[in-house]
């Protein structure tokens, strides 16, 4: 059933239809306070949900799906189980003789009221979180529908909309999107590892291995993109496989090599004179190469536009123009490959110039930079859509 339906059934479980502002004057049966447990669990679950959004890891919808805990929630509310649960104080000691001690009654009633109040607050917080998640889910589903209709390649595991685009899904692109999801997960794992290792003690040989693994991971992405570009170069150029903030900085299907240097360089405080010289040369040559490719791209755009606009516009027949444009588009694949080659070389040169430890710190900084951009994308998307 659609994920948003799952939320509705959860609402019923929590009796959201009931009056939320139930007064505290009536005695709350002890068993109802079992609500402590699932809310505690949700508290932890809610944290993991937030952190996954923070990583921009929206590719795995399983993080948004309600865990099997809802079974437990049902049990807690309906079953007549005796709780020896941790954290449940002895205030539900049924053996206190109520008939003999009015003070005890009063105290117990007050404690029960307090417990009920806290329980209602927790329930309210939980429901609010559910509401937010439900809205996010609806928005995501809408975005997916929109993307499908616009002909974007929507990921695996999601059934194709029968009203969706008429083109067949490009398997090369679908494969790339899946691989990219895995790539990001592995990237996040490597960043964590680098962070841990740099704060502790690690010998140079092991650190070198970590650095080389991280470098190879980036090179792996360039290979994936090359394959994807052959399948659909427009897709790679559009950066649709990246988050929105990353797309803002897009340059020929990826990050600007000069940006990479800008991000990394402030993090190296102690550089030898030779290193400073090498870095200066690298910055300059990188910028020059980038500018040259940018101008080449501009020329390609102009020639393509001329091609498409050629002949008579308004005549109704444009097959020759489209065909000659298709020939030109092959050049776009070369440009994407060339841009990635530039990124590859820039990383390679930085690795050559820096010491192992500096390279490790650099890779950590770079990785975290991209993580922050992804987090910015999700924060922005949420903020942008919050109901007023």
């Amino acid at each position, binding site marked *: 059933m659609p994920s948003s339906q799952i939320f509705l059934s959860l609402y019923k479980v929590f009796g959201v239809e009931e009056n939320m502002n139930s007064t505290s004057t009536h005695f709350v049966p002890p068993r109802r306070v079992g609500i402590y447990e699932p809310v505690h669990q949700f508290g932890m679950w809610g944290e993991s949900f937030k952190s996954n959004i923070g990583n921009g890891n929206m590719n795995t919808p399983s993080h948004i799906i309600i865990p099997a805990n809802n079974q437990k929630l049902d049990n807690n509310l309906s079953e007549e189980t005796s709780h020896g649960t941790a954290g449940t104080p002895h205030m539900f000691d049924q053996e206190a003789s109520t008939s003999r001690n009015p003070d005890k009654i009063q105290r117990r009633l007050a404690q029960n009221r307090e417990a009920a109040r806290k329980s209602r607050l927790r329930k309210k917080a939980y429901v609010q979180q559910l509401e937010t998640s439900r809205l996010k889910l609806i928005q995501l589903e809408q975005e997916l529908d929109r993307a499908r209709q616009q002909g974007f390649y929507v990921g695996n595991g999601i059934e194709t909309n029968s009203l969706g685009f008429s083109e067949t899904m490009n398997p090369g692109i679908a494969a790339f999107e899946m691989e990219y999801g895995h790539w990001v997960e592995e990237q996040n794992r490597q960043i964590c590892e680098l962070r841990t290792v740099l704060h502790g003690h690690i010998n140079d040989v092991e650190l070198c291995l970590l650095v080389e693994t991280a470098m190879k991971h980036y090179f792996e992405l360039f290979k994936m993109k090359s394959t994807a570009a052959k399948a659909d170069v427009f897709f790679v150029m559009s950066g649709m496989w990246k988050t929105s903030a990353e797309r803002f900085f897009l340059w020929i299907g990826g990050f600007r090599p000069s940006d990479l240097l800008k991000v990394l360089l402030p993090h190296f405080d102690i550089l030898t004179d030779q290193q400073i010289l090498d870095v200066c040369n690298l910055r300059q040559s990188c910028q*020059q190469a980038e500018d040259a490719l940018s101008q080449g791209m501009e020329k390609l755009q102009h020639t393509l536009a001329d091609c498409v606009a050629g002949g008579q516009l308004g005549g109704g027949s444009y097959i020759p123009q489209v065909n000659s444009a298709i020939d030109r588009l092959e050049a776009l694949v070369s440009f994407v490959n060339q841009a990635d080659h530039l990124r590859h070389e820039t990383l390679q040169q930085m690795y050559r110039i820096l010491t192992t430890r500096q390279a490790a710190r650099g890779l950590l900084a770079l990785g975290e930079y991209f993580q922050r951009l992804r987090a910015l994308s999700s924060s922005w998307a949420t903020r942008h859509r919050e109901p007023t």
Partner: protein
Amino acid sequence: MDKVMRMSSERGVVIFSKSSCCLSYAVQVLFQDLGVNPKIHEIDKDPECREIEKALMRLGCSKPVPAVFIGGKLVGSTNEVMSMHLSSSLVPLVKPYLC
């Protein structure tokens, strides 16, 4: 082949290109940025275009254009030029041919 060898020695920096090739244009821009005035041969405008292409491929180019010669020797295509530039080995090579 002789024609190619002749053409490639006409100037310090020679680029074999095609008028439609934008990547060749990018390489040209790079050399100009470095202060070099390369000789551009647009082989698609040459009647012997096919032979020139074959000759360039035989010299080891994976694609005929762009093909860059410095001092009469084949340096390579865009990849090689970019790699050399980033590793600071291109500038010394073109130094004798600066304008």
